[in-house]
C-alpha cells in the first residue's frame, strides 16, 4: 500500500527518471535502517517501472541477502554482473553468497587458452561491447575518409598503417560480439530459489529422483516441457525440475 502511494506521489510530482531515483534513495534509506524487506519493496518497484541498473540489482541482491533469501540474492548479483562485469563489489558479494550454498558443485577445469578466451569474451557487458564497437567503427570510417584527402604522402602512410590493425580488431570484435549475442539469446541460466528441490529423471511429478539441489545453485536451462524445465549443472549432471523452483537470471 505504502509502495503504491509512493509511486502515485512520484508519478504526480516527478518525472520517470526522478521517480526511480527517489525510490532508489528510499530503498537505500531503508537498507541503512536495517529494514531489508522495505528496501526490497523499493528496489523491486524500480524494476517494475521497467528501469534498472547494475546498482539497483546489486543493492537488491544485498537486501535479499540480509533478508536471508539466498537464491534471490544470487539471481540479482548475477544480473548486476551482466550489466557491470568485473565490478569488484558485485563479484565479492556474489562470492560470499555462494559460500552459503549447500551444494558444492565442482566447476569444470579449463585449460589456459580457454580461460583467456573467456576473459576476453566477457571483458565487457553486451551493451559496452556494442558501444565500443560502434566508436571503433566511427574512428575507422573517419580515418578512411581522412587518408583520402591528406595531401602529404608521409602522413597518409602513417594513417593507413594505423588503419589496418584497427580494422583487424574491429572484425575480431564483431565476431566476439556475435558470439555474445548468440549466447545471450540461446543460453538461459537460472538460480534455484527453493530451499530444496528434487531433480527428477523425467518431466513428471512421480518420476524417479536423480539428485537434490538447494537454494542458490546456478543452473543452465536446456529444455522445457510443461511446468518442468530441464537443467544442467556445471559438472554435467542433468535432470528435470519444476519451473517454479527457479528464476531465470
Amino acid at each position: 500500500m505504502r509502495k503504491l502511494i509512493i509511486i502515485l506521489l512520484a508519478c504526480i510530482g516527478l518525472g520517470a527518471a526522478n521517480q526511480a531515483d527517489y525510490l532508489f534513495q528510499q530503498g537505500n534509506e531503508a537498507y541503512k535502517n536495517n529494514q531489508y524487506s522495505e528496501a526490497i519493496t523499493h528496489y523491486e518497484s524500480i524494476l517494475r517501472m521497467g528501469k534498472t541498473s547494475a546498482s539497483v540489482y546489486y543493492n537488491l541482491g544485498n537486501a535479499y541477502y540480509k533478508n536471508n533469501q539466498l537464491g534471490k540474492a544470487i539471481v540479482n548479483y548475477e544480473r548486476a554482473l551482466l550489466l557491470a562485469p568485473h565490478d569488484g563489489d558485485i563479484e565479492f558479494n556474489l562470492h560470499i553468497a555462494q559460500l552459503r550454498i549447500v551444494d558444492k558443485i565442482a566447476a569444470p577445469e579449463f585449460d589456459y587458452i580457454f580461460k583467456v578466451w573467456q576473459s576476453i569474451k566477457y571483458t565487457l557487458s553486451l551493451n559496452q561491447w556494442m558501444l565500443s564497437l560502434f566508436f571503433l567503427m566511427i574512428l575507422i570510417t573517419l580515418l578512411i575518409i581522412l587518408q583520402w584527402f591528406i595531401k602529404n604522402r608521409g602522413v597518409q602512410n602513417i594513417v593507413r598503417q594505423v588503419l589496418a590493425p584497427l580494422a583487424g580488431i574491429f572484425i575480431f570484435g564483431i565476431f566476439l560480439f556475435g558470439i555474445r549475442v548468440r549466447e545471450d539469446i540461446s543460453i538461459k541460466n537460472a538460480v534455484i530459489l527453493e530451499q530444496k528441490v528434487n531433480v527428477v529423471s523425467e518431466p513428471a511429478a512421480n518420476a524417479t529422483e536423480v539428485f537434490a539441489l538447494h537454494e542458490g545453485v546456478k543452473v543452465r536451462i536446456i529444455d522445457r516441457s510443461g511446468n518442468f524445465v530441464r537443467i544442467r549443472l556445471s559438472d554435467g549432471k542433468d535432470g528435470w525440475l519444476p519451473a517454479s523452483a527457479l528464476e531465470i537470471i
Partner: protein
Amino acid sequence: MKKSINETALFILMHLICCSTFAAAQSLSVRATVNQTQIAVNQQLAFNIELVGEGAQKVNPPELPDMGGYLTFLGSGGTSQNISFVNGKMSVSKSFSYYYLAVKAGSFTIPAVDVIYDGKTYSSQPITLNITATSSPPATVAPSSNQSGIGDGDDLFLRAIVSKKRVYQNEPVFITFRIYAAVSVTGYAISAAPSTTGFWVEEIESPQQPAAREEVINGKKYVTADIKKIAIFPTSPGQKTLGPMTLQCEVKVQTRRSRDIFDSFFDDAFFGRTTSRVISSPTVAIDVLSLPSEGRPAEFDGAVGQYKITAELDRTEAKTDDAVTLKLKIAGSGNIRMITKPKVAIPTDFQTYDPNVTENITRESSLISGEKIFEHVLIPRFPGEQRIKPIRFAYFDPEARQYKTAVAPELVLRVTQGSSTFTGSPQVGLGKEEVQYVGQDIRYIKLSNVRLLPVGYRIYNRFTFFAAFLFPFISIAVAFMYKKHVDKLSGNEAYARSRKANAMAMRRLSRSKSLLEPGRQKEFYGEVSNALVGFAADKLNLSKAGIISSELEQAFKSREISEELTHEYVDLIHFCDFQRFAPTNGSKTEMENSYQTAKQVIVKLEKAL
C-alpha cells in the same frame, strides 16, 4: 549315530598298511582292487581305488569306470587316508571305496581307472570279474557256516519321498529319506549324502533317534524310520536329478534256532552277530519349470514363495546428523536366503551406509520360513519433511502361479535443525581460498545510481543498432564520390567547365529575364546570346572569345549532335546577335519567345551531350 565296524573297512585298512610298506617309490601309483572276483548276481562288490606315493593326499576322487551294465553303483564307502613314517620316510596313501551290485551274469572286465595328478595320468590295472547267474538265492550271499537268512533287497530298502516332482525354479522340494526294514537293524550310517548339483539345499533337522513306525507293504510288515529330511531349491530350470543317498546298515544276522541256552542268550541285538549291508535310495528326477516371463514386475529378483514386507523407522522425528534406522523386514516362506535387498528410494539428503542384513530361518518338515531383515542407518543432513517412497518387493507365488508385489507404505521423517548448522553459516569443507571469506559480511550497497536503463535492454534489439552500421557505408560512399569529383576538378579543366556550364548559363538567363522590358532589348539579347555561346563553349571546352558559328557547327558535328538541333541553336544565336544591333525595338512577345527557346535549346543540348 553308531557307526559299526565293517569287514570291508578292515580289509581296506589291511590293504593300506600293506601298500604303505611298498610306498618307497616317490611317484604316484594307482591300484584298483575288488573284494572278490567271483561273484553272483545280486551280490555286492566292494571296489577300491588306492593311491600311493607323492601327492596321493591331494588327488581328487577319480572318475569311476563304466561298468557296462554288469554292475550298478550303490554308493560310496568314503575316503580314507593314511600317512606313515617308515625309517624316517613319509609315505602317503589314499583310498576311495565304492559299492556295486552285480546285476548281470557274465565275464566282465572293470576297465582301468585313470587318475590325473600334476598333469600326468596314472592308471590302474583292469580287473576281470566272473559274475555267475543267480543260481543261489540271496540268502547264500555270504555262505558263512551259521549265518544265513539275511533279507534280500525287499527286506531292507531306502526310499526318497518327494513332496513335488514338478516345481518352479527356486520353489522348494521336500525330500524325506525313509528306511524300510523287515529285518532288525541295529545301526546305520550315511555313507554318501545325495549329490545335489543344481540345487541349493536346506537341511531339516531330524531327531537324533528317529521315531520308528510300522508300515505294511504288499502284506509284508516293515519298520520304517525317517532318517533324513532335506529341502532342495532348484536353481535353474530343466530336468534335474537328485543323486542317491547311500546308507550303511548293521543288520542282525538271523541265526539258526539253537537249543543251546547260551546261544539263545546271545541271540539279541547286543550280543548278536551283525553283518553290514549297503542300501541306496533311488535317484529322484525333478522337472523344474522356469518362471513365467509375462507379468514379471520390474522389481522382481528371484524370490519365490509367499512374503510380506514391513518397513519402519525407529523414530518419526529427528534432528540433523542424528542416526535413524530404517528397518526393512521381509518375512514369509520360500527361498529366504536368496532374497536380495529391495530398492529403497532414500532421498539424497540422507547420508546412508550399507545395510546390515540378518536372516532368521525356521526349517520345518514341509515349510522353510523365516525373515530377512535389512537395517539401514540414515543420517539426515537437512531439516524438513523427508519422505521415503513406498518400498516394493516382488515375488513369485508358486501356489497362485503368478507374480505378486508386497508394498511397505511410505515413511515420513520430520527433520529439525540439530546443533550443527548447515544453513545460515558457511558449510564445512571449504577450499583454502574460501576460508578467508568465512565470516565476512557482504559489502555495502551502492549509494549513487548511475544511469537507468530499461529492464532487459539490449542494444542489438534496436533499430538504431542496424541503422548505426549503415553510417560508415554511407559516409564512406559519399566521401568516395566527393573525392572523385575533387580529383576531376583539380586534374581536368574541361570537366570543371562542363560541370559549371549549366550553372553559368542559368545565371545568365535569369539575368536576361530581368531585362525583359521593351526599352532594354539590346541588353536582353546580349545576355541570351552570351548564355547560349558560353554554355556551348563551356560544355565543349572552346575559347569563348571570338567564337564564330562555323566553329560551333564544326564542334557540334564532331560530338554527333543532330543537325536540326545545331541549326536551331546556331540560328537562335544569329537571331539574338541580329536583334542586338537592330535599330528597331522588338516586341515583348518576341523577346519572351526567344527567352523560352533559349532555355529549351540549352536543355536539349545538355541532354544531347
